[in-house]
């Protein structure tokens, strides 16, 4: 049975062909996934929280550690693989999705993860990101979005708000930012989610769903940079976030605010969605979140409720999760189908290939 035969999404797991720990082996802990390398992010960096969450979440997958691969590009977050005791490669700027594409296509027995940032994934590596999403390669992409360039010490990034004053924009940035979720949805992403570094429970839940999804899982993680962009996500962190976070839960009406007083409804005029007072429109008008909807239009419309400027409000959760054939499964299937048609030994097969049909013999 192929993935396309499944009646609904989520059943065909992203890790089902990755070897698992045997029943009688001791359960792994976060410590098993912690390498001996000293972590060198700045004090207070949001990356610590994500690392801790990943280290404690990976054992739950029950996979053999040697079958997990983390690939990163360049940037603060891209140091991530060094701190995990799995196979890993800290590659070059923007290219992690391309390298991971080769790994994931070559080997179905690996759980492949990409760790990247807003500069790495959306500026220099934008092309690879959109094509990975389009192809639906079986991998999970964690995009740490801190809306700033940290490793190069504080230039504006492709997600920075317009007007941002940085070292390279002393009178304010005039770049319009990307909305990473909108971009991923536009690039045919089959799993698109957003979470927050400081919300361990939500982060872990999204990671679990992402790992379970077969195809490219794209997870934007709002991550605070305390040195160069401190407080960028304060609105969605800590207390009093009920007006800022629009939580997306599949099958639930989308509502937020004090006592759930606000919610999303269809915007007949604009064709998208808009925020309304529940008291005014009635609960029955609220949009029920459907992440499995094949048409990404509503998910895209919801993603537009994210502030492009300084962040006051953002939908958080799994925007979209649909089943679609993956490039790597199909590429391997083409190879195995072709191999199955040959009943010769490889050497004999090679001899007849290079000989071809038009030959002559000199004695």
């Amino acid at each position, binding site marked *: 049975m192929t993935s396309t035969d499944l009646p609904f999404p989520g059943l065909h797991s992203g890790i089902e062909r990755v070897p698992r720990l045997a029943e009688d082996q001791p359960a792994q802990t976060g410590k098993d996934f912690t390498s001996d390398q000293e972590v060198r992010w700045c004090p207070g960096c949001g990356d610590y929280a994500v690392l801790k969450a990943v280290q404690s979440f990976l054992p739950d997958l029950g996979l053999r550690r040697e079958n997990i691969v983390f690939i990163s590009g360049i940037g603060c977050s891209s140091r991530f693989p060094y701190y995990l005791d799995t*196979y890993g490669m800290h590659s070059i700027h923007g290219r992690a999705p391309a390298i991971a594409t080769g790994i994931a296509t070559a080997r179905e027995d690996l759980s492949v993860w990409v760790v990247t940032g807003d500069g790495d994934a959306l500026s220099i590596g934008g092309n690879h990101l959109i094509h990975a999403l389009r192809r639906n390669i079986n991998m999970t992409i964690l995009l740490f979005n801190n809306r700033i360039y940290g490793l190069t010490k504080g230039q504006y990034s492709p997600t920075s708000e317009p007007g941002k004053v940085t070292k390279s924009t002393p009178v304010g940035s005039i770049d319009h930012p990307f909305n990473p979720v909108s971009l991923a949805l536009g690039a045919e992403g089959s799993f698109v989610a957003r979470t927050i570094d400081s919300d361990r429970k939500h982060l872990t839940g999204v990671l679990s769903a992402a790992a379970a999804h077969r195809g490219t899982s794209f997870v934007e993680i709002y991550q605070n940079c305390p040195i160069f962009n401190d407080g960028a996500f304060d609105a969605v962190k800590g207390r009093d976030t009920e007006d800022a976070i629009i939580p997306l839960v599949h099958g639930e009406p989308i509502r937020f605010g004090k006592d759930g007083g606000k919610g999303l409804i269809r915007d007949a005029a604009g064709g998208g969605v808009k925020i309304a007072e529940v008291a005014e429109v009635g609960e029955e008008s609220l949009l029920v979140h459907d992440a499995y909807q094949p048409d990404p239009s509503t998910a895209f419309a919801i993603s537009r409720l994210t502030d492009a400027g300084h962040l006051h409000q953002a939908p958080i959760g799994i925007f979209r999760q649909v089943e679609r054939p993956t490039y790597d499964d199909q590429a391997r299937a083409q190879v195995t189908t072709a191999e199955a048609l040959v009943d010769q030994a490889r050497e004999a097969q090679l001899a007849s290939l290079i000989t071809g049909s038009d030959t002559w013999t000199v004695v």
Partner: protein
Amino acid sequence: MTKQVKQLDRVIIRFAGDSGDGMQLTGDRFTQQSAAFGNDLSTLPNFPAEIRAPQGTLPGVSSFQVHFADHDILTPGDAPDVLVAMNPAALRANLGDLPPGATVIVDTHDFTDRNLAKAGYSGNPLDDDSLDSYLVHPVDLTGMTVEAVKEFGLSRKDAGRAKNMFALGLVSWMYGRPVETTVDFLSRRFAKVPDIRDANITAFTAGWNFGETTEAFAVSYEIKPATMPPGTYRNITGNLALAYGLVAAGVQSGLPVFLGSYPITPASDVLHELSKHKSFGVTTFQAEDEIAGIGAALGASFAGHLGVTTTSGPGIALKSETIGLAVMTELPLLVVDVQRGGPSTGLPTKTEQADLLQAMFGRNGEAPVPIVAPRSPGDCFQTALEAARIAVTYRTPVMLLSDGYLANGSEPWRIPELDELPTIDPGFATRTNQRDEDGSEEFWPYLRDEATLARPWAIPGTPGLEHRIGGLEKADGNGNISYDPANHDFMVRSRQAKVDRIAASLPPIEVDDPSGAPGAGEAKVLVLGWGSTYGPIGAGVRRVRRAGFAVAQAHLRHLNPFPADLGDVLARYDKVLVPEMNLGQLAMLLRARYLVDVIGYNRVQGLPIKAGELAEAIAELVSQSEGVRVDLTGTEDHTREAHGRQIQSEGALS
């Protein structure tokens, strides 16, 4: 009517027409016929970068030159004995390459005022005296084709399209080529469209019959099969041989081949060919760009496949950073550069050798990469295997420099027996290789093999060997990030030493010096080349020897590192001539490395070096070094005049 048959030892034919006229196919079929007949041969396709330039114009002319002989030949030939021109533009574009006395077969059908004007003719050259020094056969090839195939009810346009097969039939008759392979080919190619199939076969046969019956062609020629070393042969182009070499490298190493590639002329045919061979476990990935192509290939290498990327010069520029990452991570990776004219977009369909220094130095930092180059179309097979041997054995990216001429040119290739092919051992790491202070086992990804200096290749899925690699500098041994100055210096030198050590695995240079052991004979001049100049150099050297003078020739397959004895060989000759299709890139490396005052012979015209001109340069050097006059008169192959009209006093030979 009984016709005369003359013996020739070699012929050069050029088929030229509009790029939609099927000249490449025509040339390829004639080549296959000649190969099947047993001639030695060499071909030179030449086509515009535009897929369909405006019809009938000079930029739209496409040609295919084939040189075939009853003896061992090395080049597609400098100048055609016979030109088949399908329109005025094809005549005008190629006439300058013809020597006096050459035969010209012209399809008169397109010699209308309009088409003549498009080609830049003010009058009809068939009607004036401008072609008087050639033997011209004006024939209405199109008209006769349309007449011959009218029974199939095709449109006039479709019927006319078979004119290339009529021309092929006529030329096949002239040179006594066997016709079966072409009839079989047409039957297969057009099996699903019987009308087109039958029209093409009929046109081909009609062309043959026309030659046999018309009085316009009084003579046909016979070129006997060449004497070649025993074996089974086939005709092969460089790109096909290269693709087969990569498949063979997969078989010989037991590694699945993973090609990450982005389409680019003239390398795309390798991607096309490899995509047909999934049954060998070959995966081909057409990436979103050049960078992703090599990125995916490197990822596949990390995962334990034989990663390959194929491109041309502009693609190498884009891949440079990832090649550097492969140098740093010390993973096997094959980088194939089918060179074309540059810089920038340059001459996409023409050949050049100007990427040597890019291959050598085109990266940031000290990033040594081994470089190999094939010398002929068939040699692309062995060179691909050699590149794979080096990459896998030494855990390094390897650059293979082919070029547009090798890629599209063809030659008879003796099909190797499988036991002649090298065995390549991936030697994956399977166990820990170190103990830490408290005695527990560890894996050190940068603990080098003493003999090769290669690091262990531990692939994901291997328990206990989990490790991280990357572009940051590594500590020697354990591979952890290290900014230590002394360690960096050591690692820079270690990466260089590893590449240098490849030289120990190379055979001594083969110096072709009939006058004696290198330096001990009469030869004072050594001609040293690399890549596709092998043919022209060999042909040029032969002519000088035919004039009675001694000259030595050697050809480099390995450009980095150089073979260990190269310095010694260079020192044994008074003068070293280095012909290259660039401004002296190998010459620069030799001068820097060996302090030898090598002399360059440099042509960058987008075409192979002409053997005749090179022979003059070699002769000049021999004259200088021996203080004698070297006269090459009469050393060229002597059959040209037999084709055309008798020129002045030279008379006809037969």
